[in-house]
């Protein structure tokens, strides 16, 4: 039967990788702080969020060992973010379209013509 008592330490990440990730994270922090002081117009926010997502990926993949983890772990993580996305997207679909009555939707423009036909 299979060996039940022994269990290895799991994938061991070299110290060098941890230090590199650490330095990348610090660089990312410095970068996002520095860019905030530069006028990129509407691009400031997407740039800042992109940097944040990259930092998150570094932490998730290396510090949290997801790079070496099972598919099940990845599915679980993706589901978490996907469900958050559902909550944000569908809530925004209401909040941002509240005042759409003021600007007629395309079919409101066509309707008078249809009525005219019949």
């Amino acid at each position, binding site marked *: 039967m299979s060996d039940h008592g022994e269990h290895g330490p799991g994938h061991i990440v070299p110290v060098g990788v941890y230090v590199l990730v650490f330095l990348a994270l610090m660089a990312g922090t410095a970068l996002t702080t520095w860019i905030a002081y530069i006028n990129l117009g509407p691009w400031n926010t997407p740039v800042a969020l992109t940097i944040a997502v990259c930092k998150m990926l570094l932490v998730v993949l290396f510090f949290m060992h997801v790079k070496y983890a099972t598919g099940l772990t990845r599915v679980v993580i993706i589901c978490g973010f996907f469900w958050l996305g*559902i*909550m944000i997207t569908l*809530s925004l*679909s*209401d909040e941002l379209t509240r005042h759409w*009555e003021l600007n007629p939707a395309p079919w409101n423009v066509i309707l008078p013509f249809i009525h005219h036909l019949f």
Partner: protein
Amino acid sequence: MNDAPAASSVNYLNANYGIRSWLLTTDHKRIGLLYLAVITFMFLIGGSAAVLMRLHLVEPQGALVEPDTYNKLFSTHGIVMVFFFLVPSIPATLGNFLIPIMIGARDVAFPRLNLMSWYIFVAGCTLGMIAILSGGVDTGWTFYPPYSSLYAHTPVVTMAMGIFVAGFSSILTGLNFVVTIHKMRAPGMTWFRLPLFIWALYATSLIFILGTPVIAVTVLLLGLERLFHVGIFDPAVGGDPLLFQHLFWFYSHPAVYIMILPSMGVISELITAFSRKKVFGYSMIAFSSLAIAIISFIVWGHHMFVTGQSVYAGLVFSVLSFMVAIPSAIKVFNWTATLYKGSISYQAPMLYALGFIGLFTMGGLTGLFLASLATDVHLNGTYFVVAHFHYIMVGGALMGYLGGIHFWWPKITGRMYPDLWARLAAAIVFVGFNLTFFPQFVLGYLGMPRRYAVYPAEFQVLNVMSSAGASVLAVGYVIPLVYLIWSMRYGPEAGRNPWGAKGLEWTTPSPPPTENFETPPIVTEDAYEYPVAAESTYPNAPGVARV
């Protein structure tokens, strides 16, 4: 307790004695019973509120209480029944008891966490009881601001904390179940050999994990707003009351599927056992459980069609809400197909299951009226909605719960209850239920609003009919309490498999030993492999047993 000669073995009930062995247990079976005790108590509280409401409504001007008190009654009834009874009911009692046994494991993945989740649940119920005893909230179970955040003078924060804490308990339960089902199945127990009850509880646990945290943060925000007078949901300082509704219903709609999915799992077990026939379309039923869990998260806006949500979002949610009916319908078709040419017997669990199929179908179909934007504008806020969700939650979820309790009672206690009384109670429940809630469909259609302490005189006949039905229903609920408790002491010994059903839980003694199995099982066959009658060589011969 076990004083008959055949009960030779030590089982989970008599392995240890004393209150400490129960309050400090990590045995999932004992924890299931601990939950059973607490939720039965909470059911009586919520049921008492309902009794008072129905007594009050026999007269158009109200027969019993002041309008403010009536508001507290329907709020208490809703909160207790949803958060402290239905949400934990099947998962925490039958789920805790059965999941490890059904998958061939010794216990859940995290037994101490399991016990802790019971204590957390008790803490949540205690906070809820404190809120009730300090007068009760009058906001409705939906707690909509700005009333609940600015104007209500009732213990909203206490009740919100109770819900927060109870929710945390259900998160831990769901977590435990997901890990247990993924990681602790016995050798040979592949995903597609699992009982459908497990699939249903797995889907339910996904909702626990993904949805409950949102209600937690929502009641937290509500509490903070109420305590510190900040304006997250207050329009006067730029807040949006509808934001609360979005966050609230993001959980609370999937929550209703938390309440019905486990019951559907029970029904799958009951229908196949009492038809002595392999379930029709196993994988479709399994996938439909997952589909219900997933789609349930994208339909919540159908609770907000008339509260100020944009029409465009309403359209999206309406279409999606129609989609969620499909997997439920698939289940009903498959159960019916399982019955076809089965060898059906009508013991009490089967009566509950058959009742479920009829009543759940009615509840589900009336949901479509409410999912359709145009008709919902007229029906929302009326008794039509009340009847719809009671058909599902009482006619569906509660009957499934009772059916499951009756089916697995001999396994849990080792004793059999008197079937005649059980069938009588099931019939009384069915009749009483329909008498209570069918008139409410008519009332809603005629325009009687819900949550009103008074109503126009022309609605009195239907209201009285509903209240009369409620008293019959109450009798139907009390009878099982009596004979089930009686059976624990005086019922005949059940033996391993009193129903002759398939499933790992029926291979182990009744009651099971603490480690669930005398020898760890190895699974070699699919679920529900009932013996099939021999094929006839003369296909249409009268009187010849056919498959």
